[in-house]
């Protein structure tokens, strides 16, 4: 009965290495003297994540199901493995100095990042709702703690508890949905569900509909789609900014990975109804995020709301239920990670005082181009990319999403989306106005925290990639298109 060979454990080599890295990091933390240990842990994790990336790359031919079909390693999994690990690597690299400024230099920060990455990898490879559930929970439990990392700050506590309560609340819906699906199909395996649903074609029992609806809610929650997004602005604002940068990119990517796998494979036969539901969700998500982002005076909170809007764009591509839309999602997730992380890093650098309630104000950017021209230029690139203005990668991201929508006949939604992206220019541009068109106000200027040495290469890297993908988007899109073939 128990046969190691059929488990195909070698296909999960990167994940095993990842767990090894976490364990090694714990040991490093214990062995090094206090005060120096976090640096050691950080380096251990950096090297470990690079090894994970390398092992993913060299192990790329070893595809197929593992653990008796509970998980599947295919092109889709590979894509998310690389993207998610890469995002985590960026965040780990830039965290140390920033954590020092918050007085929360603790090794557990890195461990939590690694474990949440593990959860996200499970979500990307899951072929069973049980694994999706375990992945979501592993990720979320780590994120709750990460949001509350600044233990002495009320905002951090508050963001954490809101996220935690609403997150576990949604988990209950999710489990209930899975339970109903189990009752209907007799299995929680995604392939079994697909076979069952296509078998009863057109005559899907009501319980299965309810179950799929509840599962949709859970994914929409993690992806921060309106009206399930309520936690996200508060959690994003309360969390340490590196965590915000992480949360607005990686978990969102993982949520869409699971969303795609479950809805395209398992619920593919129900796509017509989900298209309608997602149409409404996408339209209100884009609009809601935009209208609130317009009114923010804090760059951090503006980015939090804009992140909701971007989730709305992704939902537009999601509801096409075709290859072009799925590929557009993968493409957009990658470039969104680059531009958003870049923007948050510059925001960290410009912010004068973490403990100031008025932190991250637009006012701090007054005349930035005269003080720190390179930083202002980098922020300009990120803002233009987020606004979707060519020749940055952001333009092609939106272009693919909306042309996928038009191609599938959702012209109305594409119109709403393009109009929304026109509105969004307003608040991104507002920051550009502050940076480039306003004179500096020397009286109120404080030196700011500055880009620490480790952040500089990452910001430059993000700028280069955002522009490079903007000029040559087809390599990434080709990879994305190949990765989604397994879904359809």
């Amino acid at each position, binding site marked *: 009965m128990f046969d190691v060979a059929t488990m195909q454990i070698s296909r999960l080599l990167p994940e095993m290495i990842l767990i090894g890295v976490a364990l090694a990091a714990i040991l490093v933390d214990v062995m090094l003297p206090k005060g120096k240990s976090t640096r050691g842990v950080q380096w251990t994790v950096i090297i470990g994540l690079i090894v994970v990336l390398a092992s993913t790359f060299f192990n790329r031919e070893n595809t197929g199901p593992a653990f008796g079909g509970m998980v599947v390693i295919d092109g889709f999994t590979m894509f998310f493995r690389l993207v998610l690990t890469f995002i985590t690597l960026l965040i780990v690299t830039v965290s140390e100095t920033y954590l020092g400024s918050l007085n929360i230099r603790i090794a557990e920060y890195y461990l939590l990042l690694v474990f949440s990455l593990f959860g996200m990898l499970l979500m990307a490879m899951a072929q069973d709702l049980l694994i999706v559930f375990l992945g979501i929970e592993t990720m979320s439990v780590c994120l709750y703690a990460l949001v509350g990392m600044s233990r002495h700050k009320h905002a951090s506590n508050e963001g954490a508890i809101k996220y935690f309560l609403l997150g576990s609340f949604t988990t209950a819906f999710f489990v209930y949905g899975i339970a109903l699906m189990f009752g209907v199909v007799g299995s929680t395996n995604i392939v079994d569900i697909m076979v069952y649903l296509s078998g009863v074609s057109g005559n899907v029992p009501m319980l299965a509909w309810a179950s799929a*609806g509840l599962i949709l809610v859970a994914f929409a*929650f993690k992806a921060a789609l309106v009206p399930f997004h309520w936690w996200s602005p508060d959690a994003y604002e309360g969390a340490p900014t590196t965590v915000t940068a992480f949360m607005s990119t990686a978990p969102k990517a993982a949520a869409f990975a699971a969303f795609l796998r479950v809805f395209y494979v398992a619920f593919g036969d129900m796509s017509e109804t989900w298209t309608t539901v997602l149409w409404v969700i996408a339209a209100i998500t884009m609009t809601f995020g935009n209208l609130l982002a317009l009114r923010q005076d804090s760059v951090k909170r503006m980015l939090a709301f804009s992140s909701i809007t971007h989730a709305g764009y992704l939902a537009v591509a999601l509801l096409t239920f075709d290859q072009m839309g799925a590929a557009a999602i993968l493409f957009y997730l990658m470039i969104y990670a680059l531009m958003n992380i870049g923007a948050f890093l510059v925001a960290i650098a410009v912010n004068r005082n973490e403990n100031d309630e008025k932190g991250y104000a637009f006012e701090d950017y007054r005349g930035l181009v005269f003080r720190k*021209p390179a930083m202002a230029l980098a922020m300009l690139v990120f803002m233009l990319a987020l606004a979707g203005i060519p020749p940055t990668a952001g333009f092609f991201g939106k*272009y693919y999403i909306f042309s996928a929508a038009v191609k599938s006949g959702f012209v109305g939604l594409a119109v709403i989306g393009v109009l929304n992206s026109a509105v969004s*220019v307003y608040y991104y541009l507002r920051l550009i106005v502050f940076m480039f068109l*306003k004179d500096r106000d020397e009286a109120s200027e404080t030196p700011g925290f500055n880009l620490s040495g480790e952040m500089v290469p990452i910001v430059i890297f993000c700028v280069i990639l955002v522009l490079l993908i903007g*000029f*040559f988007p087809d390599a990434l899109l080709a990879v994305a298109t190949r990765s989604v073939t397994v879904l359809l």
Partner: protein
Amino acid sequence: MEHAAEQVHHAADTVAAAAAHAPDLHYAIWLLLFPLIGLVVNGLINRNWPEKLTGWFGSLMIIGSFSVAVSLFMQLLKLDPHHRAVNVTFFNWLNIGGLHLDFAFLIDPLSVVMILVVTGISSLIHIYSIGYMHGDARFRVFFTYLNLFVFFMLILVLGNNYPIMFIGWEGVGLASYLLIGFWWEDMSKAEAGMKAFVVNRIGDFGVLIAMFLMFSHLGTLTFSEVFPAAAQHYAHDLNNAVIVGIGLMLLLGAAGKSAQFPLYVWLPDAMAGPTPVSALIHAATMVTAGVYMIARSSMFYVLAPNAAWVVALIGGFTALFAATIGLRQFDIKKVLAYSTVSQLGYMVMACGVFAFGAGVFHLMTHAFFKALLFLGSGAVIHTMHGGLHHVNDHHTDPQDIRNMGGLRKKIPVTFWTFLLATLAIAGIPGFSGFFSKDEILAYAFMFFKGEGGLTILPYVLGLVAAGLTAFYMFRLVYLTFYGKYKGPEGSEEGLHESPAVMTVPLMILAILAVIGGWVGLPPVLGENLNKMHHWLEPVFAPSFEAVHYHPEHLSMGTEWVLITIAVLTALFGIGLAWMFYIKQGREAKPDSEQTGFAKVLWKKYYLDEIYNAGVIQPLIKTCKFFWHGVDEKVVDGGMVHGSARTVRWGGSVLRTLQTGVVGNYAVLLVIGVVAILLAVYVR
């Protein structure tokens, strides 16, 4: 679709075969590299160069581009007229999901006209700016932005497919925005100026949708493929919804960029930027991008005559409407701004009556005389500043023509060049504007002759607008340069002619404004004298051939009658202005004495107020509703301020809202869950 793609490929092969004999034009990339070098050097490397060096360096880079443009023009001249379309491919740019795009230039008669105008005018304006911006603290930044603008403008007109054009399209928008905001110091103005960018985004949205439609129905976005494909599919299905949609969406884009009704509102505000910027971007080049795009997409409009008719009406209406506003403006730059809107309307209208060549011709002559008018107005403002500075007056508006008068004697070079440009825009025979305007009116009349009925409208609108233009332009000249000086006491001593870096470009432009139209002489003067028409013909010929469109022919007699009517109209306008402002010596009234229709005109039909009340305020209210209403009141306020109040209300539903922040979030979340379950239930 498969079959069509094959045909398109075949067509592309033929083009490639022709290209085999074409000269190697890859050096065209230097058109872009020069401004790029200028912008990198001035933007990043240049730290403390002296002003002169910075300015001349930036200018030389543009002159470099201009010489490349001239050389490309020579190269095309050597080719057979029907092979004057050279695709210069640099690399394969995108290749995904059936969309194949190269990073490539299309060097053809149309793009060559555009690059000559863009680089030529830019060179002159760069040089002029060395004098105009003298002493500005951000001199270096100004030249960086100017080079950035030229860079994107050239991408816009050179790209051989819509996405590349769109990159330039967005880029010039950004550069223009940075330059408009160049002198803004306080927040309110900066935010108001976002109008330019946001209005333009509405237009961009049209272009995007048009591209989506093209891609999904024609499968390509490259000019040399998409037009034949459109012709093949829709030549026997005129006014198909898809093509009409593409045409109207492109018109929306053009209306944003080229300031057509109702999206023109940003252009007069854009005059807040430095005057050279108004001359270059908001008169001569960027605002003509929309006209360029419509002319480039001529195929779609001949295939969708209904869309073209809308183009003609919007253009004609804009021409007339803006001219009436121009009648009553007192700010010298505002008069010119509305006149630009009006002239752009002319060009758009020309495209609407299938006179694409005439539209582009007017685009060129307009670039000469309007750039000259703006630079001249800049020189006037410069002079007025000098005068006001002389008496330490910082309250009098140096741009208000009610403070000018009699400047003719003080600044003769500016006066004479300004007068020549005014004669050109008024359509006096012999000057450049006359020939292009006449050609447009002739085509509009031909269009009427062919279609009959209401299609007389474009001609009438154009003719009336021409008369009004002559009137308000001469009103401007008389009030500014004739009569008595009306500025503050003593400031007269401080009025001086501008330096040579400013006056020499004026003189060069003046020559162009006079002779620039001689490349397109009307048929009444002899056969084959309209060089411009023949030069552009191969660009538009495939469109006309696709639908076998042949414009009506006009007899010599009709031509002469049309010319006479146009000239008389212009002379009538000038005469009226002469009678009012010279013979009767009328003076413009101060703001408080404006009454009746004149006041309506002066207030620009109150459109800004209507926009504010009808569009902007409701938008702000909606935002406030979501901000204060939904998120603050329902979500957070429900707990903080609302708890006491809602207890009194005691409603059972509201009770759930008052429990707390997370509780309220949870309520809204559950409402979402219920909505989804209901949706699948009623499915």
